[in-house]
């Protein structure tokens, strides 16, 4: 990464590390650093560029050799077609992602509280068994899951399409939400406060409601972002458990893009339409997401 000759430059100006407070003097090393950062940024953004320029070209102008060029004339026909095809399923995906995120976050918060601060005998083993649920390949449950949900539908006729996916994503979201909240409470809630509450005669639910829940917002932000994104982006459960009429946007996008559809403008616009909600979530809330990674996964 660096060379021995460059080291004295830093030693002459000892900067506090990690706080962004380095003096912004131009050095060869800084130049190299920014060059690399910009090259990598261009490479990472390249697929997005392809999506944008293709989606804005009129269908007739997408001759193969023009694909990497900027559009000569802008057409929104691709976006219009994609929106027309995808909007009903976008709405369904929104319901799915919001409900699944809220439900599994609430369960995760309650569980995390118990596993961090209100342990019962064997709770560590139960927690480890929960965690394994986070890593299982869903292929290993898919076949009997289909059967079980079909059986359940016999007496719960509404348990189809989106409600069915809400149930599944809520359940399989419990492990990661529990992990994030447990790690968060273990660092954010001092034992002494809980002891004091106990002395004052507060029971478990009272303690949760008046001490734990009010400080839980950072944890909720992280689990809500995480669960919203994974429910929105899921395709495997959608493919096995729903159809094009009642499934989420990933299912319908795959139908739009698959087969022999030659209309690249609408396909690429469809990809953008289907990805915008999660992209917006990341751009707006990305800062909290990174701090969430620190509290959740880096352990």
């Amino acid at each position: 990464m660096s060379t021995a000759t460059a080291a004295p430059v830093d030693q002459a100006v000892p900067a506090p590390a990690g706080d962004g407070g380095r003096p912004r003097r131009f050095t060869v090393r800084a130049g190299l650093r920014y060059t690399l950062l910009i090259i990598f940024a261009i490479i990472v953004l390249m697929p997005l560029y392809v999506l944008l320029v293709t989606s804005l070209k009129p269908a007739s102008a997408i001759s193969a050799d023009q694909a990497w060029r900027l559009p000569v004339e802008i057409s929104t026909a691709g976006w219009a077609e994609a929106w027309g095809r995808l909007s009903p399923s976008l709405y369904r995906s929104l319901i799915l992602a919001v409900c699944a995120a809220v439900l599994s976050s609430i369960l995760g918060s309650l569980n995390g509280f118990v596993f961090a601060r209100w342990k019962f005998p064997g709770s560590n083993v139960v927690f480890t068994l929960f965690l394994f649920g986070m890593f299982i390949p869903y292929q290993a449950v898919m076949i009997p899951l289909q059967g079980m949900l079909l059986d359940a539908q016999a007496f719960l006729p509404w348990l189809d399409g989106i409600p069915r996916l809400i149930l599944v994503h809520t359940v399989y979201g419990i492990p990661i939400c529990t992990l994030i909240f447990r790690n968060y409470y273990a660092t954010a809630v001092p034992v002494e406060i809980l002891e004091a509450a106990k002395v004052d005669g507060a029971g478990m639910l009272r303690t949760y409601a008046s001490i734990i829940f009010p400080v839980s917002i950072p944890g909720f932000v992280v689990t809500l972002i995480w669960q919203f994104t994974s429910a929105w982006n899921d395709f495997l459960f959608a493919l096995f458990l729903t159809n094009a009429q009642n499934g989420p946007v990933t299912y319908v996008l795959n139908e739009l893009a698959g087969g022999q559809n030659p209309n690249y403008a609408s396909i690429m616009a469809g990809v953008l339409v289907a990805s915008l909600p999660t992209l917006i979530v990341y751009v707006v809330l990305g800062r909290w997401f990174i701090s969430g990674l620190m509290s959740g996964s880096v352990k």
Partner: protein
Amino acid sequence: MRKIRTWLPGLLLVLPSIILIGVFVYGLIGQTINTSLLRTQDFVTDKITNPGGIANYTALLGSDRYQHALWNLLVLTVVFIVGTMIFGLLWAILLERGVFAEGIFRSIYLFPMAVSFIAAGVVWRWLLSPARDDQAVGLNQLFVQLGVPGLQSDWWSANSRMSMAAMAIPAIWQLSGYVMALFLAGFRGISADQREAARVDGATEFQLYRHVLFPQLSPVALSALIIVGHMSMKMFDLIYAIAGPNSYQAEVPATLMWIQLFPQGDPVAAATNAVIILVIVAILVVPYLVHTHRTEQRDG
């Protein structure tokens, strides 16, 4: 020994989740294992399609098709892990001491993670098209137009045992930012005093990273390895979107399971395959979970 009245409410509060996880994770896995051991016979021809018991596993594991799928999975996983680790660590090193517009670079590197595999697969299917020269589209066309036609490739369609390495490219694109964020969080967790101390002792930048910073990142690297590794082993969406559901060339156990279940209508073989995928993931994850569990017990 604490009194029951103290801990019982805690157990009751978690009980709904215990039941849900018990049924949806462990109960269903049990059923899948059960299914995978069944003996089946073709109604019309009386031909035995699945011999039943452990023989189902030996038959599947011994088949050329499954070994091809396992090999593909190995190539995909190794390239995927190595690629995300290299880019994730490199980007984290470039960013960790704070640069101008850090937030923008971080968002750019992280954004592919917000995109679904199925959406990313649509654009990567086009980018990784094997057509060449005059017919070229995607990356091959870009290489021709940039004047480096020699870089053209058949990508995942190549008739090579290593072709799945190309399938790892979009996966690396999607997950490197996540690994970067993990490493970045790890770097920021190391106190500034330690860097200062190393500098006072006359350590070069290289020595600082090599002997002070990297060793403290090994727990992060392990987490990243487990997360990326298990994602690779159950990867389905991306391959389904890029290669289509029926590609033998890009077949891995997870996509083969779909073929066994639907086009072939053989749930027993699909269940056998699913259990093998589960075992492969468990071999990776269970030691990690036990290790984490033990460490936490020891640290209180």
